[in-house]
C-alpha cells in the first residue's frame, strides 16, 4: 500500500521544490537587477512605512506604566564653586572636613549613571518594537501583542532571513569575482570606471541584503578625490552604507579568512590601503601612506573612522588625531540610525561578527540618515587635536548626538591617570590658594 503513496509524495515534493526555487529566483532577480542599475522601486520605503504603522499599533496595545523620571541634579558647577558653597562661609583657602562630600557626591553620581559606560551598550528604546532583544522593562504584554510578535518572528526568520543571507552571499561573491576580473584590465580610465561601477553595484546588493533604508542629505558635499572622509562609527555596516553611494578607498588591517579574500580582491580593482598588523603601530608609516594616497589626485577619497571603535550611536567620542595631522581637506559625514527598526550597534565584547550579522539580518530593517557636511580644513593656529574636536562637534551637531571628550578606547582600557591628577591639582588650589606657588603648573 505504501508503494502507491510514494510516487505521489515525490511528485508533490518535486513540484513544491520547483515552485519554491522559481519564486525565490524571481525575487532575487527582482532585487538584484535594480541594484545593478542603481534604481529603486521604493519597496523598502513602503515596507518601512508599514512597519511604522505596526509599531504605532503595538504601542497602543502595550500598557506602559509611566516610569518616574530619574533625576540626578547635576549642574556643571566648577569644583571651587561647589566647595565654597559647601563651607561655612569663611572664604579663606583652607581645608574643611566637609570637602569630602564633594568627591563623595560626584563619585556616587557616576556610580548611578555615567556618561561613558552606557555608550558601549545598545541604546534603550522608549517603546517596544516587537523584537525580543530590545525588550527591557516592557511588562504586561497582552496575548494580542504576543501573537503579533509571533507573526513577526515567522516573517523575519522564515522569509526575510534566508532571502537576506542569499543576497549577502551573492553580493560578496560578485564583489570578489568582478573586482578580480577588473583587476586584469590595464590601469587607466576604463579600469577606474569599471571598478567604480562594480564596487557600487555590489555594495547596493549588500544594502538590499540588510534591507537598509538610507536617506542621504546634502549630496552636493560628497567627498572628492584627494580628501579624507571621516564619519562616526557604530558598526561595520557603516562602510556598506557610505560605499553604496560613493566610491572610497578603504583603510584597515589585513585580515585572514574570508575578509582577507575580499580585501585582496578589492585592491586589485582600485587602490585601497591595507596595513599589516605590525605596521599599524608605526604612526609615521601610516601617516606617510595616507598622505601619499591623497597626493595622487586620481585616487579615491579615503574613508576613516577616527573614533577607532564602535560606539552606540547616541554620542560621538574622541577622534584620534592621526587623520587630522595630514593636512588635507576633511569631509565630515554624520550617520544616525533609527533604533526602532533594528539596533545597528556592534557590541564587540558581547557578539562576534557572524552573530552580529545574523542579528542584523533578522531585525526588521536598518534605517539610517546620512548627512554630508561641507568640507573642513585646518585653520591657522589650530593644532590637530583642536581641528579634530571641531570636526567632531560639527558631526555631533548634525546627527543629533552627544559630543563627548572621552576616548572610545575606554571600552576596553583604563582611563589615564592624568585626569585624576587634574582633579587633584584643582582641589589643591582650593586648599592653598593659587597665589602660593606650590606646584609646577
Amino acid at each position: 500500500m505504501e508503494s502507491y503513496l510514494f510516487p505521489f509524495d515525490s511528485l508533490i515534493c518535486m513540484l513544491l521544490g520547483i515552485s519554491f526555487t522559481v519564486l525565490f529566483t524571481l525575487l532575487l532577480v527582482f532585487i538584484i537587477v535594480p541594484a545593478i542599475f542603481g534604481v529603486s522601486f521604493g519597496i523598502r520605503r513602503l515596507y518601512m512605512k508599514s512597519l511604522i504603522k505596526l509599531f504605532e499599533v503595538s504601542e497602543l496595545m502595550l500598557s506602559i506604566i509611566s516610569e518616574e523620571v530619574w533625576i540626578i541634579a547635576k549642574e556643571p558647577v566648577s569644583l571651587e564653586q561647589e566647595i565654597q558653597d559647601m563651607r561655612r562661609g569663611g572664604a579663606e583657602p583652607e581645608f574643611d572636613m566637609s570637602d569630602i562630600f564633594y568627591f563623595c557626591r560626584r563619585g556616587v553620581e557616576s556610580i548611578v549613571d555615567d556618561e561613558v559606560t552606557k555608550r558601549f551598550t545598545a541604546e534603550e528604546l522608549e517603546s517596544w518594537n516587537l523584537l525580543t532583544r530590545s525588550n527591557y522593562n516592557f511588562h504586561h504584554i497582552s496575548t494580542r501583542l504576543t501573537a503579533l510578535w509571533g507573526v513577526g518572528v515567522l516573517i523575519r526568520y522564515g522569509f526575510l532571513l534566508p532571502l537576506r543571507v542569499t543576497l549577502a552571499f551573492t553580493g560578496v561573491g560578485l564583489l570578489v569575482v568582478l573586482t578580480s576580473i577588473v583587476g586584469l584590465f590595464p590601469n587607466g580610465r576604463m579600469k577606474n570606471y569599471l571598478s567604480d561601477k562594480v564596487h557600487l553595484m555590489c555594495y547596493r546588493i549588500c544594502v538590499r541584503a540588510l534591507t537598509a533604508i538610507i536617506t542621504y542629505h546634502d549630496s552636493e558635499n560628497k567627498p572628492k578625490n584627494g580628501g579624507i572622509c571621516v564619519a562616526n562609527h557604530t558598526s561595520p555596516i557603516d562602510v556598506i552604507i557610505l560605499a553604496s553611494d560613493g566610491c572610497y578607498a578603504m583603510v584597515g588591517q589585513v585580515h585572514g579568512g574570508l575578509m582577507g579574500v575580499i580585501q585582496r580582491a578589492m585592491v586589485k580593482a582600485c587602490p585601497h590601503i591595507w596595513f599589516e598588523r605590525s605596521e599599524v603601530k608605526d604612526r609615521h608609516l601610516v601617516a606617510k601612506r595616507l598622505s601619499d594616497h591623497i597626493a595622487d589626485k586620481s585616487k579615491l577619497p579615503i574613508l576613516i573612522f577616527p573614533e577607532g571603535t564602535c560606539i552606540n550611536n547616541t554620542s560621538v567620542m574622541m577622534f584620534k588625531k592621526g587623520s587630522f595631522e595630514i593636512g588635507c581637506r576633511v569631509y565630515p559625514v554624520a550617520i544616525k540610525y533609527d533604533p526602532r527598526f533594528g539596533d545597528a550597534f556592534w557590541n564587540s565584547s558581547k557578539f562576534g561578527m557572524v552573530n552580529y550579522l545574523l542579528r542584523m539580518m533578522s531585525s526588521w530593517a536598518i534605517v539610517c540618515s546620512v548627512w554630508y557636511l561641507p568640507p573642513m580644513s585646518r585653520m591657522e593656529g589650530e593644532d590637530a587635536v583642536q581641528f579634530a574636536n571641531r570636526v567632531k562637534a560639527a558631526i555631533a551637531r548634525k546627527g543629533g548626538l552627544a559630543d563627548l571628550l572621552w576616548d572610545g578606547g575606554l571600552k576596553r582600557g583604563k582611563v589615564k591617570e592624568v585626569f585624576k591628577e587634574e582633579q587633584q591639582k584643582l582641589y589643591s588650589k582650593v586648599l592653598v590658594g593659587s597665589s602660593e606657588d606650590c606646584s609646577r603648573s
Partner: protein
Amino acid sequence: MGSRASSLLREEDIEEIKKQTGFSHSQITRLYSRFHSLDKGENGALSREDFQRIPELAINPLGDRIINAFFPEGEDQVNFRGFMRTLAHFRPVEDNEKNKDPTSGEPLNSRTNKLFFAFQLYDLDRDDKISRDELLQVLRMMVGVNISDEQLGSIADRTIQEADTNGDMCISFSEFTKVMPGKAIDITADLQNGA
C-alpha cells in the same frame, strides 16, 4: 540584556529593598538594570574592578575610598542588597516619617547615617577614630603631589585641633558631627524623584 536583568529581581525582593532603603519601585528596577550592566562577570555581585571600570569614578581622587564603602569588612563582592543599602545613604533626608520602619531603627538616609558614611571615608582602619595619620592619608589622596608634606601636616594638625574636644588627638564620631556644617549634609541628597 535588560529583559533578563529585570526578570531576575523578584517582587518580594523589591518590596524588601523598598522597606529597607526607601527607594521607589521604579528606582529599584532602574538601579538593578544599572547594577546588572556594571556586573561584567554576570555573577550577581560587583567586585572592585567592576566599579573601577567607570571612568568618571576612576578619576575621582577619592574613588577608591568610595568604592570601599560599598564592601563590608573583609569582603570582595557586593550583592544588589548591599549596593542599594549604600546608595540609600544618598537619598534626600525626609522630614516626614512615613517610610520609617519602627523595628529597623533610623532610616539609612538620616542625617546621622549620612555623617557616619562620611566619617568612615576618613576612618581607614574602622576603629571609630580618625587619627592624624588617617587624615593625612585621605588629604594626600585628594591633593596628589601638589602640596608638600609639611603643609599637609600643618593642615591636618589645625583640623584636629579645631575638632578635638577631649584631647586625645583623634576625631571621634561625635566630635565629627559637631564640626560638620548643616549645609554639607543636604548636599549629599542628590538622588531625587522627578515627576
